[in-house]
Structure formats: structure tokens, C-alpha cells
């Protein structure tokens, strides 16, 4: 196996160390730093969107507003959450967690990163050539009529991101199936690895549909095809089917790795084995499978017969079952635990579980066809996706960043600052997104640059909440980047965690393991008092 590993850079030159690297850990770090940069860009767009909505008439022009919400969503989904969870966490952790020396295809792994970076740059470039204004969904015919090269660059960015995503997913599937350390059966894999495996399969089966959707869009824009031109027999609804066939699974691509992170953090800081290992692992598989049968719930009012929505309503309700299985198992993990209030634990327990369930429950409401007739495309849906993607995914990303920070950098972040940032995030999330439920119930449509005066109060509350989140983000970024350089040094395993990455030095050596570990049980075993109070670490 060693023979096929490309020669590692020994020179100290920066280009050799980072630009030409094929080391999964460095690629993971590059993914992480790049996507945090995009997180700041996209977060800035979010703050601008919220600022615009301070007054009913809007502070900026309507065109500016439309461009800002388009960029916010596109960057957040394709350049932040997906690459941060799969590219950064997945790349860094999966080989370490399964006891491998690298991914199956290290050079393709590097290619995935550079494609991802290219896609992000193209997306940023699109802002300067007539910023895309068609929303992240880019429904035709509007996206075809919208002029300027902005949308073409947007499509190109989606293509490149999709390719990067597919290559990354192939790498994870082969790595996880083929490169596990001796003794690591599927039922001994860490739960994060389970969730990454399912995520990778979802990317493989979903992403090509997105490629098909945006390619046909591009063809309609430039090659004169008429896929979505109703005057020549085309059908705009077809795009929505193709788009959501990817983009609903994409929501699970953005939450399953987060579920995996939660399953790692909770048992460590509850000082207890995870409750229901198999139930949590297999419910991920169930979500991955069911996730492909719910897409049309985005289209209940899009021109299909209302009754045609019934099967999709039922499947969308059923998919809440494996999710609630996870929630109850996590709660049971805390039960009779010995909970330590560390920063990652705060984000994972109160932060994630406390917020995410609101997104889960509002999902049940919008899945019901009769209720969606009212709530579709209102702020209720905006509240729902943000409780899932912010209260769920981003909250967990913060848990994960703090949890693995000492492993990646060999240093500890400032815990006091970490707790302060948590409370900014937790309160900010509720203040920003909870009022959106009320706006939606009252009938305020989404993607509105201006609105009726009776909606102002809750809009202003949400805007204030977004500023709280903005401050929290700055604190987190400062804390992590400052501590990476000046934090207190830590040993191999400061958290006394059990997965394999904590058995090697912090940061891990280039080849991860000098001797491949032999695995005899899953990593979720009971703690002893001696182990927790010993000085080894």
C-alpha cells in the first residue's frame, strides 16, 4: 500500500507543503479555512439582507436585495456547509477514524479541493459581472430571461462544485469500504464515519441530477434549446423536479455529517457509551434512502394536482421517524451520564438538539399538504430551513470545530471566550429565526425586498438577532485563529475521547499511524473514574 502513496513533501517551502499536498489532513484544513472564509462572505450577505429589511420599504434597491439573497444562499450551501462538513471534517477525520494512512485516492482528493476553490472563486467573480439574482433555486423561465453573464458564471460554479462533490464522494465510498484498519467491521465504525458513508452515497446519487438541471438551463440560455420554454412545448416544472431531486437530498447531505458529529461529541462529554449505536447508524441509512423519495414536497403548489402531493407528504412525514430515533437516542445518552459543560458539548447539546428539533417539528407542519398550501414560500419555510441549516448544521459545525480544534492544532482554544460565543450563537439563533415563523403564519412571502408595515416589528427583531449572530461569529473566528497560534499546548487526547484520531499526536504525524491499529470493539465504551482523573492525555 505504501508504494502507491505519492511522495510526501519534505521541503519547507510553502507551495510544497500546501499547494502540492495530497495529505488528507492538510486538504481537510484547506477546506476548513477556505469554507470559513466563504462563511464570513456569505454571512455578510445575510447581514445585508437583514439590514435591508429593517424598514418596510427596504434600505437598498430591490435589485440589490435580490442579488444579495441569491448570493447568500448559493455561497452558504455550495461553498460553506457542504464543503465544510464533507470536505473539511470528512477529509480530516475519516482516514484517522478508520485507522487508514490517507484517503483511497489522495491526488483526486487534492483535485476535489482545488475544484471546490475554483467554484468558489467563480461564484465570487459572478458578483462583478451582473450579480445573479434568480435565487439559489434559479427557476426558469426567470433564470433564463435574467440577463448578464452573472447567471452563466453561477451555473459554471455549480458545475465545478458538483464535480468536486462527486469526486470527493467517490473517494469516501472507496476509502470507507476498503481502507478500514484490521478488525474495524462496519459495526465498529465511529458514527461519524457511518454518516459520512451515507452522505457520500447521497452525493453520488443526487449530484448528477443537479448537473442535468443547470446544464439544460445553460443550454436554454445559450444554445437555443427549449426545455423550459412553454411556447415551444417546454415545461418549466421539469426543472423543478430535476433540481429538487438533488436539492432535497442536499439538505440531508448538509445534516447527516452533522448528526455524525453530534454522535461523537455527546458520549465523550456525557462520559458514557452512546445509547443505541445500531439504531443511530441504521437510522442514517434510512434517512439516506428515504431522502430520495420526498423531493416533490417542494412542489405541492407548483402545478401538480394537490392529491399527487399525498405520497410525498407521507414519505416526508415518515422520514421524521429515523430523525426522532436519533434525537431520543441522544437524549438517552445524556441520561445517567456525567455531563461536562465543555464548549463543544454546549454547542452539541443545548445548541444543536435544543434548536434543531424546532426545525424538525416545523418540517412536519410544512410537509402536510393542506398546511403547506398556506405556508409554502412564506417566512415559515425560511424559519424552517434556518432552524435545520443554522440551528442544525452550523451549530454542529461549531461543536465540531471546537471539539477537534486541539487535535488539528495541538493547542486549546480559550474556553471562556468559547462559552461566550456559544451564548451569542444560541440566543442569536432563536432571536433571528423564531420570529420568522410568526411572519410566515401571518402570510409574509419570502424573497421580499419590501413588505407591509404590519410585518416590521418581527423583521426588526430578526435583524437584531442576526447582529448577535454576527458578533458571535467574529468571536469564534478570533478565538480559533488566535488560539491556533497562541493557545495552550495539549497532548494526544485532552478530551479523553475514544475514537482513533485521539490515539495519535496532536497534530497527527504525516502518515497518521506508524503501526496500523487493530480494532476489537466500537469506540463507545464505558469510562472509569481512574481514566478520567488520570494525568495521561
Amino acid at each position, binding site marked *: 500500500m505504501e508504494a502507491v502513496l505519492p511522495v510526501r513533501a519534505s521541503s519547507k517551502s510553502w507551495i510544497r507543503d500546501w499547494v502540492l499536498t495530497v495529505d488528507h489532513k492538510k486538504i481537510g484544513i484547506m477546506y476548513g479555512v477556505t469554507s470559513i472564509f466563504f462563511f464570513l462572505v456569505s454571512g455578510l450577505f445575510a447581514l445585508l439582507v437583514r439590514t435591508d429589511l429593517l424598514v418596510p420599504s427596504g434600505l437598498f434597491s430591490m435589485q440589490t436585495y435580490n442579488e444579495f439573497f441569491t448570493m447568500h444562499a448559493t455561497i452558504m450551501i455550495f461553498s460553506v456547509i457542504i464543503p465544510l462538513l464533507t470536505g473539511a471534517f470528512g477529509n480530516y477525520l475519516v482516514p484517522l477514524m478508520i485507522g487508514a494512512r490517507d484517503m483511497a485516492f489522495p491526488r483526486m482528493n487534492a483535485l476535489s479541493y482545488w475544484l471546490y476553490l475554483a467554484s468558489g472563486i467563480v461564484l465570487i467573480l459572478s458578483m462583478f459581472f451582473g450579480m445573479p439574482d434568480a435565487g439559489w433555486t434559479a427557476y426558469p423561465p426567470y433564470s433564463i430571461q435574467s440577463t448578464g453573464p452573472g447567471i452563466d458564471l453561477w451555473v459554471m460554479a455549480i458545475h465545478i462544485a458538483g464535480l468536486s462533490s462527486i469526486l470527493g464522494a467517490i473517494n469516501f465510498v472507496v476509502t470507507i469500504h476498503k481502507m478500514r484498519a484490521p478488525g474495524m467491521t462496519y459495526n465498529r465504525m465511529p458514527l461519524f464515519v457511518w454518516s459520512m458513508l451515507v452522505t457520500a452515497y447521497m452525493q453520488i446519487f*443526487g449530484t448528477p441530477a443537479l448537473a*442535468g438541471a443547470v446544464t439544460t438551463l445553460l443550454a436554454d440560455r445559450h444554445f437555443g*434549446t427549449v426545455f423550459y420554454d412553454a411556447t415551444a412545448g417546454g415545461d418549466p416544472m421539469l426543472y423543478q423536479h430535476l433540481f429538487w431531486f438533488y436539492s432535497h437530498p442536499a439538505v440531508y447531505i448538509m445534516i447527516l455529517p452533522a448528526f455524525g458529529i453530534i454522535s461523537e461529541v455527546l458520549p465523550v462529554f456525557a462520559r458514557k457509551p452512546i445509547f443505541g449505536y445500531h439504531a443511530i447508524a441504521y437510522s442514517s441509512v434510512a434517512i439516506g434512502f428515504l431522502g430520495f423519495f420526498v423531493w416533490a414536497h417542494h412542489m405541492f403548489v407548483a402545478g401538480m394536482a394537490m392529491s399527487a402531493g399525498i405520497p410525498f407528504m407521507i414519505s416526508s412525514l415518515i422520514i421524521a421517524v429515523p430523525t426522532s430515533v436519533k434525537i431520543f437516542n441522544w437524549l438517552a445518552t445524556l441520561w445517567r451520564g456525567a455531563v461536562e459543560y465543555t464548549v463543544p458539548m454546549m454547542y452539541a447539546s443545548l445548541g444543536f438538539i435544543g434548536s434543531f428539533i424546532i426545525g424538525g417539528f416545523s418540517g412536519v407542519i410544512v410537509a402536510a399538504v393542506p398546511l403547506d398550501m398556506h405556508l409554502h414560500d412564506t417566512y415559515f419555510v425560511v424559519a424552517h430551513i434556518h432552524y435545520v441549516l443554522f440551528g442544525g448544521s452550523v451549530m454542529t459545525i461549531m461543536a465540531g470545530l471546537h471539539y477537534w480544534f486541539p487535535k488539528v492544532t495541538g493547542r486549546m482554544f480559550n474556553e471562556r471566550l468559547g462559552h461566550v460565543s456559544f451564548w451569542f450563537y444560541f440566543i442569536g439563533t432563536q432571536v433571528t429565526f423564531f420570529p420568522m415563523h410568526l411572519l410566515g403564519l401571518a402570510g409574509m412571502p419570502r424573497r421580499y425586498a419590501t413588505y407591509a408595515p404590519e410585518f416590521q416589528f418581527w423583521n426588526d427583531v430578526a435583524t437584531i438577532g442576526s447582529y448577535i449572530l454576527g458578533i458571535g461569529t467574529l468571536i469564534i473566528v478570533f478565538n480559533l485563529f488566535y488560539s491556533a497560534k497562541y493557545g495552550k499546548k495539549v497532548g494526544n487526547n485532552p478530551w479523553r475521547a475514544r475514537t482513533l484520531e485521539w490515539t495519535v499526536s496532536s497534530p497527527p504525524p504525516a502518515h497518521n499511524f506508524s503501526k496500523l491499529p487493530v480494532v476489537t470493539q466500537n469506540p463507545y465504551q464505558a469510562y472509569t473514574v481512574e481514566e478520567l482523573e488520570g494525568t495521561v492525555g
Partner: protein
Amino acid sequence: MTTTAHAPAENHHGAGHIHVDYPDRPVEYQTEDGALKILGFWVFLATDLILFSCLFATFIVLRSHVDGGPTGKELFDIPSFVAETFILLTSSFTGGLATFEMHRDKRNRVVGWLIVTVLLGLSFVGLEVKEFVHMAMDGATLQRSAFLSAFFTLVGTHGCHVSLGILWMTGIIIQLVRFGINPITARKVFIVNMYWHFLDVVWVFLFTVVYLMGVM
């Protein structure tokens, strides 16, 4: 470099030796790297299959949306698409013969069968281009109707895949001539043949759904 049955001597990485992990396996699976890449390519084919499925779904939805323009029945020339089918199926068979000869370590025969496969592929693409040009001359362009947009996109995507396969296979023939059969070139021959067979399978569906159901 240990136990491979072939005379590898050099490989194109220029490293001199190829480390063989599993001497008992077929030559393309003898290195760990080869086995991983073949599995990886299977997974890639799954993504390509989804892409074609989407284009098929698009075509099926739009096949009746001719917008007063020409229909499949008027456009498709039966001898032409039957010939295309026959040629492509044959090429898949000759590609299979190349893999067969590879396992018997007959380099020249492998090269020979791959050349035959490439030539058949070229004539397939040639016939398809001719068909497309004819249709376009008759005014049946991809701009004419949603049916034609979907038709040209689906069949054209397959044609592009075949063209890419021809270039790829040509590159592998050159490598075979230069380096002979070793675990690395063998893996490449094996993978390009997986790709080629996959395109054949896709064509069987194209033949049925687009052409046969189109002329019926």
C-alpha cells in the same frame, strides 16, 4: 517487483518497479491501488448512470412535446439506427476480447482488438453525426421543439461519451505499445472497457426508449 507473470520491466511512472500486493489475482487487480481504482470507477459509473437517468426522464416527459414540428416517426431512419446499434454492440464484444487476451498476456492481440474497438466506435460516431446533420438539414434542430431539445441532449451526451472513450482508448493503446501489459496498463485497459460496456448498456436503453418507441 516480485511475482507478476508478465514482463513489466518499466512502467510509465518511470519508477522501475511496480509493487504487487496480490500476485494471485487477475493482473488488473494485483496492486492495492488498481483494486481501489476499479472500485472507484464502478462508483463513478453509478453517477454517470444517474446523469443518463435524468436525461432519460427529461426525454420521456418531453417526447410528445413536438410543438407541431417533426416527430420521431418522421425523423428516425431505421436502417441507420439499427446499424449504429449493431456496430456498438460488436465493439463492446471486441473490447471484451481485448480483456480476454490481456488475461492471457498477449499484448499484440490486446492492441489489435482495441484498435478494432476504436474503429467501430469511430464508425458509430460517424453514423450518428451523419444522422444529426440530416435531421438538422431538414429543420429538425434542437431549437425546434422541446422534444428535439431533449432528443439531441440525450443522444448527444451519449455520443460525447463514446467520443471521449475513443480518445481515451487510443491513449491506452499507445501506453500498451510502449510499456506492455503490467498491473498499471492492465488496470487501464480494464477500466476503459468497463466504461465502454457501460455506454453499450446505455445505448440499449436509448435504442429501445428513443428509437424503437419513437418509430412505433
